[in-house]
């Protein structure tokens, strides 16, 4: 009984994925038909199409640049912040921590219009730099909180010992704390990268032309005028983005529940 329930859900998870994969490798004519076709003819039309009809290389480059750039910005800002929140006690600390957390709750739509005008005035609209800055802001709260949670676990003796040896606070952070917290930092980076790949709303507003499309938004423009939506190309790009995400998640599997709850689960 247990296995039947689990198997049913596994099927519900996988069947749409396999079917969508089959969409990616079938000709256009077999996608939107009066009767759905479950066993299509194999075709690489869409594969040719995504590389020839669209600047796929530029979409990929934009995605990679925006993601890596945003994660780097996040780490530079979040590691010191997390260290401060986890290892010091001072007035206002909890309020500062909560403020950082609360930005995670902000709906993108609330800040969308001012941010649109901000980047327009800075002349950054439709650039990958703007995407980088926005993705970093979106993920900063969760990166900070995840790393903070890992830093909270460390015993205080670590710093005390180093301090009696005369190490400065900054060198303690760089030489001792960061290496010990590497799993937390990696988990936070992976989750931030995934969220950046997924980001849709801001990218839609900021990337007004193909110049700065990422994969996530490029999908929504795979329409061929009167041809309608080009599903087989969409499917292939979906799997193109899925593959690295899948590998990253496999690598951090055991830290995933902790990362996704921003440190609340110590699983």
């Amino acid at each position, binding site marked *: 009984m247990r296995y039947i329930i*689990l198997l049913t*859900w*596994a099927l519900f*998870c996988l069947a*749409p*994925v396999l079917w*969508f994969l089959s969409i990616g490798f079938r000709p256009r004519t077999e*996608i939107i038909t009066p009767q*759905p076709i479950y066993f299509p003819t194999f075709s690489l039309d869409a594969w040719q199409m995504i590389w020839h009809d669209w600047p796929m290389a530029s979409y990929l480059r934009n995605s990679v640049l925006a993601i890596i750039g945003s994660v780097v910005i996040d780490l530079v800002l*979040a590691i*010191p912040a997390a*260290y401060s929140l986890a290892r*010091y006690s*001072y007035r206002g600390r909890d309020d*500062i921590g909560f*403020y950082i*957390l*609360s*930005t*995670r*709750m902000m*709906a*993108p*739509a*609330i*800040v*969308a*219009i*001012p941010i649109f005008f*901000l980047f327009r005035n800075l002349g950054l609209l439709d650039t990958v730099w703007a995407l980088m800055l926005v993705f970093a*802001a979106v993920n*900063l709260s969760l990166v900070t909180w995840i790393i903070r949670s890992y830093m*909270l676990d460390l015993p205080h003796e670590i710093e005390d010992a180093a*301090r009696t040896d*005369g190490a400065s*606070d900054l060198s303690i952070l760089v030489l001792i704390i960061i290496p010990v917290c590497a799993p937390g930092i990696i988990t936070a980076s992976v989750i931030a990268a995934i969220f950046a790949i*997924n980001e*849709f*709303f801001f990218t*839609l*507003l900021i990337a007004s032309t193909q110049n700065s499309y990422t*994969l*996530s938004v490029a999908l*929504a423009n795979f329409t061929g005028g009167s041809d309608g*939506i080009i*599903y087989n190309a969409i499917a292939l790009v*979906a799997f193109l*983005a*899925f593959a690295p995400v*899948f590998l990253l*998640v*496999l690598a951090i599997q055991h830290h*995933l*529940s*902790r990362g*996704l*709850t921003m440190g*609340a*689960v110590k*699983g």
Partner: protein
Amino acid sequence: MNQSAISGNRVRRRPLWRRKLFPYLLVAPAVIYLMAITLYPGVYAIYQSLFFVRFNEWTFVGLENYRELFADADFWASLWNTFVIGGIALTIEFVVALSLAVLCYRDKFIRGWRIIFLVPMLFMPSAVSYIWKLAFNDGRVISDLLTRLGLIDARLDFLGNVDLARLSLIVTDVWQWTPFLFIIFVGALQGQDAEIEEAARLDGASWWSLFWNISLPIMRPIIAVALILRAIDITTMFASVFIITGGTPGGTTETISYFIYRMGFKTFNFGYASAASFVVLVATIIIAQLFVKRFFHSGKD
């Protein structure tokens, strides 16, 4: 400070104010960055909401945008839609995820394969929206499968009917994000003490009483955190609305995010959209202060 003091014991001799300032300096860059991207837009939205904006021409209208907004049936409808669609989706996701987690968390075999349960979560939301747009609508797969099972006679029009349009958004969300709750719950259940469980089982406790009396109380703060995070993301639901329904039929699937987007970037009524943003922002802050603060404090340490 002289040379010998620096080379001697730097930490001890450093002036008190500098030591007190240090943690603030560490956290400051992150806070300033976030303020630039949240506080500045907040102030900007309040200011802009007092104007009627047409291209680069701003006309001061006072609170007119707010008066209009509170009388706008579309605005209230979008809040209601967000609540209905999000509420149903979140309930289903919670029940399914918790049940699956309880069924498999001590099972070594399934634990090895649990990545399968995570697969939907690993696709981009825009891609997932197209999967279900094709399945429900353009490709008519769901209709076809239901017909084959003998459940319906004619093709269903998933965009033409209020309930069916909402259902397609709910299914899309449930499919993609149940794994999010599932993996968190599995992590929480695995984290609990296996020995206590074993002892209770030897005492003859049924799995239900084990779950109800031991697991659930331990998990309560984690459940709260997980549901809060999921609820935040559901209320900001956008990609699936944008791609699958576009708010049809008759605006009944328009969420609050889509409403603000439509007002700002389709009708270019920026002042009005800013007024709506500000109202939602105030609501968010109130909710955050009331609920989130409490649960995240109990969730730490």
